């Protein structure tokens, strides 16, 4: 099969067609009664519900609350995980001791952390932030350690042959390799942090955030609001993935090889 690289306009048209087709099927499903109107409101009703919500300050406050926690979790988790993973993995003995724990937390379904963290931090924004941070940190620790191991097995031969000092080895070999691995891992960390932030909104019953909108809508079975909330979360995730992919292409373009 031939691989085709689409032109930007063609690609945009394909995306628009895909979105349009999904809404058309949704509208048909509603109009023809394939699914009960109670479970699946019309796209127009959902749009109206979203429009009404967007006119309230509470909606924007909820979005800001989730987005700020989410991004703070990504930033703090990346810094903590990146630095810890880097220094732990520099020493193979220490890494051998730490790796099972890092892999344990990395492999844990992220939402499992929410009730666990809330035991210590209680319900509220702190738990939500801690969950996002922990999930990102575990991923970044593993990624930084992978970078160290990869550097050790290839480029470090040259550093040794060239009699590079410890400082120069760090600056010219380990740091750039680790940063590039972290940038790649960020693409996975960003949506993961959104998942756990919204899940924490719902599970630890914070008084703000997109998860709260979903839980409030569910409590009164307001499906229009529920679908509107899901669409907002989905759009946020989509935009974040697109921005992180763009950042990755711009900052570590050479990793595309």
């Amino acid at each position, binding site marked *: 099969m031939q691989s085709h690289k689409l032109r930007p306009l063609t690609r945009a048209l394909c995306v628009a067609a895909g979105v349009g087709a999904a809404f058309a099927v949704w509208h048909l499903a509603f109009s023809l009664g394939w699914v009960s109107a109670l479970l699946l409101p019309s796209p127009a009703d959902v749009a109206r519900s979203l429009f009404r919500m967007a006119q309230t300050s509470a909606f924007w406050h909820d979005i800001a609350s989730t987005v700020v926690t989410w991004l703070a979790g990504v930033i703090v988790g990346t810094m903590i995980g990146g630095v810890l993973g880097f220094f732990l993995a520099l020493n193979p003995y220490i890494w051998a001791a730490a790796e099972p724990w890092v892999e344990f937390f990395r492999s844990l379904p992220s939402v499992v952390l929410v009730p666990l963290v809330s035991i210590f931090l209680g319900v509220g924004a702190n738990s939500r932030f801690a969950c996002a941070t922990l999930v990102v940190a575990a991923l970044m620790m593993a990624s930084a350690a992978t970078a160290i191991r990869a550097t050790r097995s*290839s480029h470090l*031969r040259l550093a*040794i042959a*060239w*009699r590079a*000092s410890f400082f120069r080895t760090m600056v010219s070999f380990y740091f*750039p390799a680790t940063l590039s691995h972290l940038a790649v891992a960020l693409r996975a960390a960003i949506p993961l942090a959104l998942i756990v932030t919204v899940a924490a909104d719902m599970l630890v019953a914070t008084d703000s955030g997109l998860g709260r909108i979903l839980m409030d809508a569910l409590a009164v079975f307001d499906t229009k609001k529920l679908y509107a909330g899901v669409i907002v979360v989905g759009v946020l995730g989509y935009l974040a993935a697109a921005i992180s992919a763009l950042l990755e292409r711009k900052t570590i373009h050479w990793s595309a*090889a």
Partner: protein
Amino acid sequence: MIEFRETIVSLSKDGQRRLSAGFRLSKGDVAVLFGTNGSGKTTLLDLIAGVRKPDVGVVIVEPANLPVAYAVQDSSSGLLPWKTILSNILLPALVANKSSERTRNEALTLLQQFGLGDRQLGFPYQLSEGEKQIVNLVRAICTPSEILLLDEPFSSLNSKTRALAKEKLKQSTKQRTTVLVTHDAADLEGPFNRFFQLANSRVEEVDLSTAKSFLENAVSQA
């Protein structure tokens, strides 16, 4: 100067396959290492570079604290992907705190001669395997070192580029101790004066005709 003094090194993780070596190369020597796959050629280069330590004996490299110029076999892993072509070439000099305008000019001249002059600000992923091998070779030549190690440096080059690479190599080996690993009899047409065969778990010095005969037979049997 490079000296293997009663050196033994493991070639396998279980230590079952071992290689013993005892020879000395002086400044100006240009040596060729050859042998079957897995006989330990790259391991010997790693011992000289200091990347590996021998299990028994010592490997003496003088001057000890100067960088060793090393064109590794896998050209891709030899280049740092986040650095430009020119930065990759100048990195050993930078590491040795011996960056100079002269090294930079030499690198640019060599890139120009190899037809890569306009790629100096490009990145390794934009190069073909052969071009990466050229950059590795240029970097080895530009490394401020008295020891030059080349692990199959011409394997991906076409005949024209290979001839030019040999010519440049000939010029850069004069004040150095050079060790080259090859599987190709054609590579012996160079400035080489010492030939070492790796066979039966040991390193044995042979003459040019023995080296040629081994490498030509290896090709015909392949």
